[in-house]
């Protein structure tokens, strides 16, 4: 059988690390895969050395629009660690609230996209309708639906008003009920199970040796969660229980995210009660001493690391940012082998890569010399037609 190369190109290089996968396909079975990144390379690490610490808060926030709260929390935490300053206790609880809100909104987003990926449009619309509640809560607390701009070096910029707390308490039952419905669909619906179970299996040993992080690793029974291993901010006071599934397939990875929705809701409720009174921001010097510090945070997609090296002064000398999707790519690329073409979207979306839709598939059939463009929807329709 002739080996056909299948460029799975990013026609929408929308999100964080859009990929260009090039699959070697033997008929329907994928033999090999080659990953090419860089459609979204903005040279941020170089740009960070030209901006001051204050301006870098807003640059680090715009590395990834969905998990921007994780980026600012990690960046401000790293800079505070370098200067030896600790954020006031109330700010730590507020940071936990805004982090968990962003985790809920990010998980809802990807679960909705996963449902849409397998053609379940109504589920996508339901999930994103309930996600609007979380977006309005974010806007009430931070002032912008997506780009929170809430964290700053030395604390947070606003306090949680009474209006936000009442609004959150009023909306919690609605959110819980919608989470229950998502969990019921993902566990019982035969269509979802058929498309996600036993697809893209990542064994525990591979997950560790290929350094998967976050729900991708926790789906294969690897117990790593920065909030549990290396607690930061208010996670020291509020214990969390790490959710792991041991099947290791796409379904297990999605179920980790579904269960984390309930976990995040509980964390917010608990931290709203335990939040101490007091000021929420501290003064902070503009110039920082020389030194190094490493900050680690659990972003919705996994462990996020900032490594800051400063030679003193207003501007950092070098900041290394390693986003979770970057280290989740290799483990997922290896699970493609042996799967069929139609499973590509299901596996890709289960790792929650921060690129939203690799829409275009260009199947080049060498012997017939015919190039025809199909988008992912037509491909799933193709899969469904011959499956009946």
């Amino acid at each position, binding site marked *: 059988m002739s080996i056909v190369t299948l460029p799975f190109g990013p026609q929408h290089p929308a999100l964080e690390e859009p990929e260009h996968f090039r699959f070697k396909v033997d008929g329907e079975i994928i033999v090999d895969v080659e990953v090419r*990144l860089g459609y979204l390379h903005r040279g941020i690490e*170089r740009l960070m050395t*030209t901006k001051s610490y204050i301006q870098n808060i807003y640059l680090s926030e715009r590395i990834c629009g969905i998990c921007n709260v994780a980026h600012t929390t990690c960046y401000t935490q790293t800079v505070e660690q370098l200067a030896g300053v600790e954020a006031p206790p109330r700010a730590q609880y507020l940071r936990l609230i805004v982090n968990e809100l962003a985790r809920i909104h990010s998980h809802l987003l990807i679960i909705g996209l996963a449902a849409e990926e397998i053609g379940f449009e109504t589920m996508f619309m339901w999930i994103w309708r309930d996600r609007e509640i979380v977006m309005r809560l974010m806007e009430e607390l931070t002032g912008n639906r997506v780009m929170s701009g809430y964290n700053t070096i030395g604390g947070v910029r606003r306090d949680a008003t009474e209006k936000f707390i009442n609004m959150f308490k009023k909306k919690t039952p609605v959110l819980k009920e919608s989470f229950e419905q998502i969990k019921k669909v993902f566990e019982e619906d035969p269509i979802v199970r058929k498309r996600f179970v036993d697809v893209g299996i990542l064994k525990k040993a591979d997950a*560790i040796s290929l*350094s998967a992080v976050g729900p991708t690793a926790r789906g294969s029974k690897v117990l790593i969660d920065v909030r549990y*291993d290396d607690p930061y901010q208010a996670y020291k006071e509020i214990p969390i229980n790490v959710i792991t599934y041991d099947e290791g397939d796409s379904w297990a990875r999605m179920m980790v995210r579904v269960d984390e929705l309930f976990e995040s809701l509980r964390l917010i409720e608990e931290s709203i009660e335990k939040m101490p009174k007091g000021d929420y921001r501290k003064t902070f010097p503009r110039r920082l001493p020389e030194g*190094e510090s*490493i900050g680690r945070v659990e972003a919705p997609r996994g462990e996020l690391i900032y490594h800051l090296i400063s030679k003193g002064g207003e501007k950092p000398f070098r900041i290394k940012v390693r986003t979770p999707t970057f280290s989740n790519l290799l483990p997922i690329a290896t699970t493609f082998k042996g799967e069929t073409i139609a499973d590509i979207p299901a596996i890709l979306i289960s790792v929650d890569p921060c690129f939203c839709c690799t829409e275009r598939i260009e199947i080049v059939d060498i012997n017939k010399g015919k190039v025809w463009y199909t988008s992912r929807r037509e491909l799933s329709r193709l899969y469904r037609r011959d499956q009946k």
Partner: protein
Amino acid sequence: MAENDEKIADKVRSIVGDRGEVHLKGKRRIYIKTSKDVLLKVIKDVIDNMGETYVSAITGVELEDTIRVYYHLWNIRSKVLLSFIIDLNKEAPEAPSLTSVIPGAMFHENEAYDLLGIKFTGHPNLHKHFLLPEDTPSDFFPLRSNFKGGEK
């Protein structure tokens, strides 16, 4: 928690021995300064003794006279971040590739090569245009200080 980190640091010191000096730098952060040629053996010994470890990040930075490479590895059981530091000369930075010990380091090393020009010996497919567009010249290393292009 602090005295637990101290115990782990002593344990790492006993494993590394005289091949590098180890110091505890803040909570759960252990820095191990070693040299280029013993790096893989040291990392292999540490992993064999301390259990499952995965690559968190690899940072390359260009100081005045050397290029310093940090290998950040997170040890799952003892919950500590081990950062191995090696220094390379500036003209032809050569570093041993970690992929033989931990395959997960492949993309991190690709990125370090693409942006800083550090050649990792023994790396499966070290190609130039991993992150940068295809038409950039092969000596285009944006994170090097002598890089002049592109700044508007």
